[in-house]
């Protein structure tokens, strides 16, 4: 029986109850410094506060991960509210990761279409997914599970049908407002796409492993993990998502695969 647990409160406190070396993979998209309204979060905390939050949660994640575990962190360059200068949060997160003993295995670029247009600079169409590992020589990577079609069809050197490495540039559609409506998710401003989490879960865990999302939000990680036969645990500060997560876990998780 696959478990999908969720608790509400400060993830820094809640993670303390997790056993050391018990989680195979953590994946999360932390609140950005974007001044978007995430319910309880006043998400305009100063950059230093943001750093502290990420630093502390990374420390806990590092403790609970197994030796061959991975940590996927979705962050992006964001424009400063006042100067409009770009702040590379991915750079800051990378520094913090190193500080907490992680190795960077890939800095994946998640590319998407359809978002607001800029006239004073190039419109933003990518975010970063930092793939950290605890041990650079020993970690789970099920490449076979996530291969994509080859570009060439007639190359004799390799088995074209086996597919190819999906590379470090990924295209996944954003969860747009229409999809949100369909799933009844209008309450949450930023939802990351199920198929992307599916790829991450497939490549870095096996069936029955435990997955952690310290900032679980609307519960996407839990839903996808359940679909793929992985145990999962998610923490969220804002209790207003409780009903939503509950509904999604019963409805979507029994639906056919998200992909």
């Amino acid at each position, binding site marked *: 029986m696959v478990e999908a647990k969720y608790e509400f409160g400060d993830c820094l406190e809640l993670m303390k109850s997790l056993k050391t070396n018990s989680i195979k993979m953590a994946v999360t998209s932390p609140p950005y410094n974007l001044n978007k309204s995430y319910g309880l979060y006043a998400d305009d905390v100063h950059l230093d506060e943001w750093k502290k939050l990420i630093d502390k949660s990374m420390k806990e994640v590092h403790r609970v991960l197994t030796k061959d575990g991975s940590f996927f962190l979705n962050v992006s360059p964001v424009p400063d509210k006042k100067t409009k200068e*770009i702040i590379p949060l991915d750079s800051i997160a990378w520094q913090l990761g190193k500080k907490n003993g992680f190795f*960077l295995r890939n800095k994946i670029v998640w*590319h998407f279409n359809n978002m607001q247009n800029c006239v004073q600079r190039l419109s933003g169409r990518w975010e970063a997914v930092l793939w950290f590992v605890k041990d*650079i020589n020993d970690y789970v990577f099920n*490449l076979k599970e996530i291969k994509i079609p080859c570009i060439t069809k007639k190359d004799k050197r390799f088995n074209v049908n086996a597919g*190819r490495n999906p590379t470090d*540039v990924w295209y996944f*559609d954003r969860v747009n407002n229409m999809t949100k409506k369909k799933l009844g998710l209008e309450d949450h401003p930023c939802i990351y796409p199920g198929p992307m989490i599916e790829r991450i879960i497939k490549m870095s865990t096996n069936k029955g492993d435990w997955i952690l999302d310290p900032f679980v939000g609307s519960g996407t990680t839990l839903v996808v993990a359940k679909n793929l036969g992985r145990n999962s645990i998610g923490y969220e500060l804002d209790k207003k998502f409780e009903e939503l997560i509950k509904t999604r876990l019963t409805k979507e998780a029994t639906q056919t695969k998200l992909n």
Partner: protein
Amino acid sequence: MLFMKNLKKMEKMEVNKLYCKSSEDMSEIDDESISLVVTSPPYNINIKYGNKHKNGKVISTKGIKYQDNLSEEEYKKLLKKVFQECQRVLKKNGSIWVNIKNRCKDGIIIPPFWILDLFKDMYLKNIIIWNFDWGGSTNKRFAPRYEYIFWFTKDKNEYIFNLDDIKIPALNYRPDRFKSQWKNPTDAWYIQLVSGNYPERTSHPAQYPEELIERIIKVASNENDIVLDPFIGSGTTARVAKDLKRQFIGYDTNKEYINMADKRLKLSIQRKKHETKDTRQYYFSMDNKTLSDFIKNKKGR
């Protein structure tokens, strides 16, 4: 000394010229005279480019090598000096575009964010991801298929940005409807690498595509402006600047490259116009299904 300096000031600055010397000293260029600096500095990764290996031994080699194995300290010092000079010669509304990529040391990825330290007095406007197909494969991690272009401006608000000149067809592009069919090319660019059969290909080991530079020169400079590349290499920046009616200045320490670039500048190539029949050339790595459909409909890309 002062007399010499004044004498120099009296001379008119030379443009459309490639200097065979280090760009750590660019005293040939006046203060605040350059509109755009665009460059791809050496990566200092000490890879021997263009070699063919067999059983771990180099069996043949092509391309001209460049010195790319400075100590990390020397390398950063060099770049610091060069970009300080770049900021001195840059106009108030000018910008600097630097192409650089992730490094991989002992299997650990090192993103090039240290470059931000060299531009503390400038504003970061975009981090552009340049995506391409082809390259080495790996089964231990994801195969690298992108590089960065960091775009810095000297002024927060006043800078050249000719957006209309570089717009690309929208996803729903239809040639019969002209209006609002063109959009901002965004900060994620799909531009193919310079492959062996391109007419622009030289024997430089790390040549960047003309199409990439074309977009940057068009958006960040106007006609007759001066474009500077402190690491000119095979001369791509100069070639494209000339074609787009901009002036140029370039530096490189390797005489062979300078000769190669000068030769390239004399050629009368008609720059190929990029037609917009197929919007795929502008958009990268679509989702798996779209991509496989696309491939199915194309014979031998």
